[in-house]
């Protein structure tokens, strides 16, 4: 079974470039004959994750693997880590900087949106070391 493997470097602190990787992912996904709802959900997951990495973690790396059954998006950063995942998952909770908020980010909807649009989301985080978020979107799945 063929797997399309994509890797993107995400620049930290560059709000005008934020979203470039999700645009690139979308360009590839659109060629894969996937249902458009799947593509849209994956692009939202990727976009929100990308923005999070820019705002909180000084960038990182995104891995996107697509096979016949699923899309797996893995976002790795070497940022500060998430102290309280429970709080971070609450809608509206944000620790984004004033600068990020001024650019229209930091509404506290990132992680909730990622959770809502994926069938499975796993967060591995260690304070001072970094965070890895892995999201799976199943083609036969039924995420809300």
């Amino acid at each position, binding site marked *: 079974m063929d797997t399309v493997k994509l890797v993107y470097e995400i620049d930290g602190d560059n709000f005008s470039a934020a979203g470039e990787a*999700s645009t690139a992912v979308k360009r590839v996904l659109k060629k894969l004959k996937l249902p458009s709802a799947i593509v849209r959900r994956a692009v939202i997951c990727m976009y929100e994750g990308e923005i999070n990495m820019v705002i909180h973690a000084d960038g990182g790396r995104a891995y996107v693997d697509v096979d016949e059954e699923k899309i797996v998006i893995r976002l790795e950063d070497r940022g500060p880590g998430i102290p309280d995942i429970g709080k971070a998952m609450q809608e509206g909770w944000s620790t984004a900087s004033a600068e990020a908020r001024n650019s229209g980010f930091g509404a506290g909807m990132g992680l909730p949106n990622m959770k809502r649009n994926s069938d499975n989301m796993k967060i591995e985080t260690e304070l001072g070391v970094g965070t890895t978020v892995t999201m799976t979107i199943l083609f036969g799945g039924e995420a809300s």
Partner: protein
Amino acid sequence: MKNSLILNTDRCTGCTVCVKACPTEAIRVTRSKAVIYNARCIDCGRCVSVCPHHAYSVRSDSLDRLEQYKYNIVIPDTSFYGQYKNLYDLNIVNEGLLALGFDDVYPAAIGAELLADLWKKDGSTIFEEDLIRVTSECPAVVRLVAMEFQDLIPNVVDSLCAFEVTAVLARQEAVKKTGLPPEEIGIGLISPCPAKNSRVYEPIGLESRVVDYALPMNDIYIKLLSPMKAVTDPADRVRAGKLGLSWGRSGGLSDMFPDRDVLAVDGAENVLRILSEIEDEKLTEAELVETALCTQGCFGGCLTVENPFTAKLHMRRLILGLPEQNLEITDPIRDRIPWDYELEEIDTEIADSIAQALQLEAAAERLYKTLPKFDCGNCGAPSCRAFSRDVSEGFAEENDCIFNIIKIMRNGMSHEDEKDELVPPPFRRPL
């Protein structure tokens, strides 16, 4: 669908300027000549505009077509009036057209004003709650949506083009006036671009053609210069007011809704970007997006003569003394004109299963990683990414890439110095 671009291979030098300019990557150069892939072409005419050798022409008709009909009506696209310098009255153009042999003139602004009036009076004919509508006046954008943004098909305003509405009305009125059967009346469009020509030849949502022939704007522009000089006291044939006449430029349509969240986007790159943002639900504030594939709307069409900005200035001057609005949609007109159409998607992907699509894309990604990403165009494709897709789909071979050929050459040499001599400076070892 057939497109309206014709390549004169004698003139084509294979320079790849059009390959790079094409917004849908529909052109490749092979064996020293450009090749257009019809399925991917949206007829925008960028290639016509940028070709340094004027190798492209546009499928269209000549004035000889008038002889086939007993009565001829010409529809000048609104952008046509902006082409002339020192013009102070739109009707001088109209009167000049009569001298060329037409029996009547119905500016496309008539249809524009009727559509505008319909939308103004009943917002539900254009706006839809929770849906960002995309205007359908530019046929190239409509085709782009059908081809690359299928999710947005419901967003496209399902109305005919202004020139089509004008044509339907003009024929009905001419039948009444002359007593001739409809097929003996010839209707021609003075067109700014191949997209409108294609729309003339193959309409969407109409059972048959409503315009009989398409005349290239640059051709009619020249033919009209001397008859226009002879015009003394022109009758009024514009019929429309500022509302309809403002449709030639980008923003002309959206300006009629000052109290709604409407924006106007023109130019291929900008249109692609905004459609992508609508698709990703990143654009949330707008209710209606007016789109035109050419810069400055139809004034930027490849068959126009004047630069689009100056043409806009001319138009501004020409409509100064005109009433805001002259025409109103009446029930009989509304009933007589077919307004709606169904837009069908155009599938350009080669793969017919996810498995096959994955296989093609995985192969393309593997190759892409090895390419220099200079997007030099020497392989005949617009970018390394497009080239890697071409290879995976079987339309090109890995060694069509000049860099891959250089790699082979380097590998054949035993000494590094020798290798460097053979290759162009960018590929020599760093000092």
